[in-house]
């Protein structure tokens, strides 16, 4: 019997399309965009990293997570600890251990360390949380967000408390942003075509049958959790370099809400959906940011009240959930065959009275 074509060969076009399209966006922004526009583009790339990381867990496991932004927090602070010049650290972060106080690493070293740090943390807490199922697991991840936020808000001598830590080298630009998004996409892609990814998607559809097929669901969930924490930890590191300051408030409810909306709007079971959702919502945010600043009409500045942005995103998310419950991409991946979004000939399943629940 002939060997079947490998899984990679059948699916590799999706990450290629995504990465190439993002490269084009980066190039356009670099070439024609203002400074402010470029900052928006970088922010979008960082959000792509977060949401793609979120997809690696949520999309494959089907469990909603509210705790992922805590990995971003972990990555960002680790980067702050590793990259701020020792002179500054010794004034603001006196509680750091001596070896960390005297270290200063370049971005390209500090970033992977930050990702690994977030992943290790996920490995430890995931061992407990992944035993839970459904809503209980989601609530536990929410608890995680609260705990991490509290620790980072109050451990003054190490995190600077509620205030901001300054002095992270501002080394981000669109190209590095694009590179980060590409790394996130490739990592999430490799995970979803892995054995663990397949087993987890099966468990997402039919948990009982997956167990009867030999799948160790707790273990596969943990793998996905760690992979997604790694990606989001990297995003946190980039975010720290982007703003050059970090404070715990950036990694809390607002960011959790917006990134989850991005995933849901795009289609949470597909990698293409994760990316498309970020692009769509980013455009929207940019639009509302301008409107909030105000448009002058005949000498009068008319502006939307602050917070209109969040309200609009909330409403759009609800509308999408009602009319397109599987998101803009309808949970499908971009590929040559179904691009742009060709209709799939999916015969509706035959309904019979014989389908019982046991």
């Amino acid at each position: 019997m002939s060997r079947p074509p490998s899984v990679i060969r059948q699916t590799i076009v999706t990450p290629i399309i995504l990465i190439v399209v993002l490269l084009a966006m980066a190039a356009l922004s670099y070439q024609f965009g203002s400074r402010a526009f470029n900052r928006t583009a970088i922010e979008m790339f960082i959000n792509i990293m977060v949401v793609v990381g979120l997809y690696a867990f949520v999309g494959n496991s089907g469990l909603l997570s509210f705790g992922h932004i805590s990995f971003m927090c972990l990555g960002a602070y680790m980067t702050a600890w590793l990259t701020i010049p020792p002179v500054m650290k010794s004034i603001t972060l006196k509680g750091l251990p001596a070896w960390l106080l005297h270290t200063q690493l370049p971005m390209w070293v500090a970033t992977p360390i930050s990702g690994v740090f977030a992943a290790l943390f996920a490995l430890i807490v995931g061992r407990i949380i992944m035993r839970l199922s459904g809503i209980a697991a989601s609530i536990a991840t929410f608890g995680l967000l609260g705990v991490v936020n509290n620790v980072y808000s109050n451990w003054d001598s190490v995190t600077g408390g509620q205030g901001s830590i300054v002095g992270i080298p501002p080394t981000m630009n669109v190209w590095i942003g694009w590179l980060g998004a590409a790394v996130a996409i490739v990592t999430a892609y490799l995970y979803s075509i892995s054995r663990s990814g397949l087993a987890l998607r099966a468990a997402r559809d039919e948990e009982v049958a997956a167990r009867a097929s030999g799948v160790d669901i707790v273990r596969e969930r943990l793998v996905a959790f760690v992979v997604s924490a790694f990606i989001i930890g990297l995003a946190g590191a980039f975010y720290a370099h982007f703003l050059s300051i970090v404070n715990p408030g950036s990694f809390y409810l607002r960011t959790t809400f917006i990134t989850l909306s991005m995933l849901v709007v795009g289609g949470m079971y597909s990698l293409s959906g994760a990316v498309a959702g970020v692009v769509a919502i980013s455009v929207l945010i940019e639009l509302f940011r301008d409107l909030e600043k105000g448009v002058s009409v005949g000498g009068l500045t008319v502006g939307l009240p602050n917070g209109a942005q969040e309200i609009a995103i909330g409403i759009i998310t609800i509308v999408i959930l009602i009319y397109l419950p599987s998101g803009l991409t309808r949970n499908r991946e971009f590929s040559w065959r179904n691009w742009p979004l060709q209709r799939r000939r999916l015969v509706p399943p035959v309904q019979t009275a014989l389908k019982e629940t046991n």
Partner: protein
Amino acid sequence: MTSQGLELVARDVSVQFEGLKALSDVTLAVPRGRITGLIGPNGAGKTTLINVLTGFQPVGTGTVELEGNAIGGIAPHKLRRMGVARTFQSGRLFRDLPVIDNLEVTGVGLGQSRRDAITEARQVLAWLGISPLAATIAGALPYTDERRVAIGRAIMCTPRYLLLDEPAAGMSEHESHDLAVIIKRIAGELGVGVLLIEHNIGLVLELCERIFVLDSGEIIEVGAPDQIRRSDAVRHAYMGTQRDEIIPALAEQAAAS
């Protein structure tokens, strides 16, 4: 194919659901390489017994043994890795995945690489004669194909035991005949110990060497097909149930033999 002692056994098993005794002191053995039947009216406890044998249902009292080793408390996925496979009364295919991936999941769950699992899945589909279904999304399959895919998923990597929960439900005469051929080959060619739960009594009497009859959680009869045909207890158990169309079937079979 069989040797003494190679069997999957439930010994004196009782299971209780909030006051309802689903199984009372049930003892049942499934020997390797043979087909064993399990029949009984609706709600008799047949599915519960499969759940017990596959680790989905903890027992109240009694033991479960796999070829001499106690397996109580072992998780379902580990039991599958030890060779105890099952299908579900309701199919439970991975609806969003193509048929080939439904089988592949078992290979991956049992430790194969994706490539090896796909190769094996193709072989199993060919062995079952359903290769053309490989690319169909499982959620779109007609009912009878769903059953065959479920069997394919369960026999990936050749388990030692296979517990089939009403595999012929909803099938026509012709389709259940094809199914009978497949079940015989699974036991005969692959040496798998099969436990067949079916309301299609004709199929059970035709295929099984030994048949257990369960009623209200108790084994009321065990024996060869002939013995079951003649049993008053069995006829009595089915009387007054929605399944009393089985009684003429039993009588017919008895007259024919």
